[in-house]
């Protein structure tokens, strides 16, 4: 009888665990493993041809014009990452610090800063595209109305400003996320520590750099890592605001767009190439995994256990 009960229990656990396991295996693990395999083959449309070894990797990294495209997109991703570290995470830390004091209206400010985060990226992209319009967009109209008309320019239409303009839209969209993660980190700092600091020093600066910043290190680890992964996966905003080719002149091209364009082709030029696309995907994937791993372990090391 106990034997039978055990089998019943085993069956019950199996019934619970197998369906979710199957979903993850079929739609996450299998495609990711396949992505690696695809990269070693030659493809014609949706048809897999011969095994070509590292040929596809060699092409996207060393053969023109792919080499320049890859480097250009990668360079833009690096710019995006560092710009957002300042605009999104840096500003997020300052806002979190301001919210942490629980000044009057803090609740309202907290809700406001997170509001853009819940919006679809597509809505944000179109909204800012309209705002950046050279003639009728509110950005140029505002500049003109406060006497800075000479600053008005086609923000998305010229190579020098397009990527920066899209980065600003991204920062507006997501700044609330690091803000509230940092805020949660600050709220976990024990009040005894803060009282002790208050006895020692009057300086706000010392307090932030020597106490608050080190103690929110776990939040920083997470926020930095997520930003890194997000910046190198960036797709939707440049896709809508710069177009699939990263216009103008590739100045808004990033790895996500370049990968998509290589894999699925685009309307104007080029055909789809699953082999080269997969090689790019594998390179991006390994780059993200390795660097994110290094960032996480490095940052973890400086976290303090309370």
């Amino acid at each position, binding site marked *: 009888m106990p034997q039978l009960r055990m089998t019943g*229990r*085993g069956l*019950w*656990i199996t019934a*619970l*665990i197998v369906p*979710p*396991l199957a*979903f*993850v295996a*079929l*739609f*996450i*693990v*299998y*495609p*990711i493993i396949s*992505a690696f395999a*695809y990269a070693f083959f030659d493809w014609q449309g*949706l048809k897999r041809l011969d095994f070509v070894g590292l040929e596809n990797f060699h092409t996207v990294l060393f053969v023109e014009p792919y080499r320049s495209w890859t480097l250009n997109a990668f360079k833009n991703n690096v710019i995006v990452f560092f710009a957002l570290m300042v605009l999104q995470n840096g500003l997020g830390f*300052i*806002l979190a*610090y*301001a919210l942490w*004091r629980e*000044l*009057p*209206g803090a609740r309202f*400010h907290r809700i*406001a*800063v997170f509001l*853009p*985060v*819940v*919006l*679809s*990226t*597509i*809505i944000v992209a*179109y909204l800012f595209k*309209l705002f950046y319009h050279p003639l*009728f967009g*509110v950005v140029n109209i505002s500049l003109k109305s406060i006497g800075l008309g000479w600053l008005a320019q086609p923000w998305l239409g010229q190579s020098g400003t397009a990527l920066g303009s899209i980065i600003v839209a991204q920062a*507006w969209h997501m700044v609330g*996320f690091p803000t*509230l*993660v940092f805020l949660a*980190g600050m709220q976990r700092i024990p009040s005894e520590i803060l009282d002790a600091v208050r006895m020692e020093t*009057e300086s706000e600066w010392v307090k932030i750099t020597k106490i608050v910043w080190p103690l929110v290190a776990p*939040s920083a680890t997470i*926020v930095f890592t997520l930003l890194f*992964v997000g910046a190198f*996966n960036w*797709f*939707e905003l440049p896709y809508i605001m710069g177009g699939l080719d990263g216009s103008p002149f590739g100045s808004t091209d990033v790895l996500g767009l370049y990968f998509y364009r290589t*894999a699925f082709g685009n309307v104007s030029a080029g055909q789809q190439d699953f082999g080269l*696309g997969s090689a790019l*995907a594998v390179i991006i994937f390994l780059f*993200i995994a390795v660097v*994110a791993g290094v960032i996480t372990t490095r940052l973890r090391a400086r976290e303090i256990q309370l």
Partner: protein
Amino acid sequence: MSATATNYYDRKGLFATLGRDGMLQIILIANTVLMLAPIIIMVFSAFKTTPEIFKSPFGIPDFAQVANFVKIWSETNFLRYLLNSFIVTGASMVLILTLGTMAAYAIGRYAFTGSNFILMFFLAGLTLPLKLAIIPLFMLMRDLSILNNQLSLIFVYTAMGLPTTIFIMTGFIRSLPNELEDAARMDGASEARIMWAIMLPLVRPAMVIAGIQNVVPIWNDFFFPLVFIQNDSLKTLPQGLTTFMGEYTTDWGVLFSGLTLSAAPIILIYIVLSKQFIAGMTSGAVK
């Protein structure tokens, strides 16, 4: 002398505090204006004609003028897209919460060989950027003949949502006390009955957190429909928006009202449930 000194320092401290708090308050107010202005301009513009938007982009509109919305209602597929988004998001959420609770319950409530390995397997999915596996996913959906079918989206979203859900719910289920369960087992209740009638009502708070964390990215997703769905009548809202924005490029009144209508459902729910939204969407990053 010492009395004056103390007094002086006290006052300086007070002023310093006021000055600092004042500055922080100014930063917060300036930021809130920056956060809300684009949304307010969007909503205001939705009630204006295109010439009105060009002439006074910041003016308060006549809110009775709903011609733009009527146009969207009658001339575009907007309602279809909205309905599709509800279907896809709803079906995915039901699957995620059902399957996620099943796995988390098995891992969190029973001791069995391999349970740690299974949990690790699920958690590995947390960090993988699935966008990069889009080519094999595309081929997989083709082989399953569900390209251009909303099932492709529902399946991918379900798989993507499971790791976070299982992570959140396993921790929660493990923390539940054993007494109720043991008592029921004494009374001869079956394992299924114990799970359904006794434990599940207790895990609702974790379900809400896991649900919100998944519902927002699924509702907002654009990438997977872009690859899987071609048929206009099957498109979800973010994807339909791109079709729609392409058709009305010069009619800014309609463009802004389209954006407003698309943003409205999630903004309204967020305003009502902001606390749960913030907790849910940052729950992966805040421990």
